[in-house]
């Protein structure tokens, strides 16, 4: 029986962590993720968890401590944001290549500069090629649900990859909204215990962790890791199917919202997708065939499935909440364009970079995007492919 509650995204993540009761939580605080270890420290003090809670001196160390714990066969977690994730960067790659399924909660926040504490995906999408699985969420409920699925995906023997559970800094991390929590016992039963096949001090099978990879073997390790990311696709779907059966809420690689007959659509991530849905509903009421795809899984990137969802559209806007400085669009645009490349007929596509550093995204802003798409769909000019929303002239 679900529990009707209200809480912020940060508290939802901390609650999921409490219910899972990981072996190790290595923490270093940074806004807006700080509340996660803050709530968790209270659970430790109150004796509600058996977790070894380690306060370290930096994010590089928090993730390193998690890797040490994971290599020893423990389930380890941490949380961070923005510059903290950047500072972890070296260790992110180590986690992926050592195939240690640490789960990292990220309250996504802009990167400096100018210095800014608010939301965009500069931090998590800069880490897109680090070998982490990445799950994104529209609201506190989805963050909680993603967290309940995270360990099972990451720890699956076909996968064994680290995983980021991403939420929108402040917009989700600090907003209190209704949520359906699950009972502790049911969460524990769903997530299960972690018994890795290999770990550092296993007497029957001692192993070295992190040795040098000579050229004759390095590539094999990398390809095995790439294969694990491919394998993750099926595992993500299988875990979601079991989650739906157990708790009644369904998830896929993405959510297709009113896409069946959509002629114009957005591909968008996170809390902005909710705001855009309100716009889609208003446009549908006016007879406009608008839809949207809300991407939940960025790594592995569900290219084939996304291409199939978009192929019947006439015009699609890719909404990028990070600036990749590629000079030709943000990372979501690059990935989506790659995904539709081999379709016989693909929609005309534009990229709109928006919401950087917490710039607000409104229903009206979404309407302006669909307005431009309607013009393109009607045979009008494509216009500039790569633009920035609401850019001030002075």
């Amino acid at each position, binding site marked *: 029986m679900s529990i009707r509650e209200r809480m912020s995204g940060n508290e939802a993540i901390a609650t999921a962590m409490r219910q899972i009761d990981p072996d190790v939580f290595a923490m270093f605080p940074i806004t807006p993720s700080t509340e996660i270890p803050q709530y968790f420290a209270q659970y430790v003090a109150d004796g509600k968890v058996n977790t070894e809670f380690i306060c370290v001196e930096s994010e590089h160390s928090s993730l390193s401590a998690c890797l040490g714990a994971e290599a020893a066969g423990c389930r380890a977690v941490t949380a961070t944001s923005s510059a903290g994730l950047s500072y972890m960067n070296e260790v992110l790659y180590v986690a992926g290549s050592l195939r240690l399924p640490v789960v990292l909660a990220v309250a996504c926040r802009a990167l400096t500069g100018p210095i800014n504490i608010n939301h965009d995906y500069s931090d998590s999408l800069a880490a897109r090629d680090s070998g982490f699985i990445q799950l994104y969420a529209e609201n506190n409920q989805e963050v909680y649900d993603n967290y309940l699925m995270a360990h099972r995906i990451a720890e699956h023997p076909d996968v064994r990859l680290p995983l980021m559970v991403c939420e929108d800094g402040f*917009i989700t991390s600090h907003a209190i909204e209704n949520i359906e929590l699950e009972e502790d016992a049911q969460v524990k039963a769903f997530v299960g215990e972690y018994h890795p096949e290999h770990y550092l001090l296993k007497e029957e099978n001692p192993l070295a962790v992190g040795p040098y990879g000579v050229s004759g073997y390095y590539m094999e390790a990398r390809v095995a890791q790439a294969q694990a990311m491919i394998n993750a696709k099926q595992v993500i779907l299988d875990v979601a199917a079991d989650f739906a059966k157990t708790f009644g809420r369904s998830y896929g690689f993405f959510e297709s919202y009113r896409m069946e007959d959509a002629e114009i659509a957005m591909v968008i991530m996170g809390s902005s997708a909710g705001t855009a849905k309100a716009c889609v509903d208003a446009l549908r009421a006016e007879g406009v065939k608008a839809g949207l795809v809300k991407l939940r899984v960025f790594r592995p990137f569900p290219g084939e499935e996304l291409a199939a969802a978009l192929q019947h559209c006439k015009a699609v806007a890719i909404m990028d909440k990070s600036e990749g400085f590629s000079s030709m669009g943000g990372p979501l645009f690059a990935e989506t364009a790659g995904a539709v490349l081999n379709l016989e007929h693909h929609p005309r596509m534009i990229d709109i970079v928006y919401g950087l550093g917490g710039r607000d995204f409104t229903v009206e802003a979404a309407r302006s995007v669909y307005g431009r798409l309607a013009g393109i769909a009607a045979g009008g000019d494509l216009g500039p492919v790569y633009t920035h929303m609401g850019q001030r002239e002075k």
Partner: protein
Amino acid sequence: MIEVRWHGRGGQGAKTASQLLADAAFMTGKYVQSFPEYGPERSGAPITAYNRISDERCPIHSNIYDPDYVVVVDETLLESVDVTAGLKENGAVIVNSAKDPADLRPLLNGYKGRVCAIDARSISMDCLGAYFPNTPMLAAVVAVSNMIERETFLSEMEESYRHKFARKPQVIEGNLKCLRIAMDEVKEA
């Protein structure tokens, strides 16, 4: 759906007040949102917090530009912030002030809707012996908007205080008195 915008100064608890309103509405079965808007935080700087209260889950996660109600926790903000920007004419602005509401209207950029005043300082000092403007402002916005029925609101808040102040039961009565007096004393022009 009812949308509320709170204006306060960092440290005064506008964010907490918005969370308390969300709590009260949640307990009456509503879907709620309570969220702050942060800048470079410092104590005393103007801050904004928001509420959406609805019968269905609201998917919108933008800030609120056309609120039904505006609550001003610090009267001095009227000099520097356009608090009634976008405020609906059939809504209301509620200011923490000892002034008569009619004297506040000239400070509100021509706002034509209801202007309400509540002397949160004196109520708080009388009931709690310290200046916590949150509690009277919360009661005032509930009274003015009628978004939660009075007795339901008071009994839900009592329940909430008994939980929240389980280790400090002596403050419960003062807070409840604070709510009742504020609901009675909010003035309107």
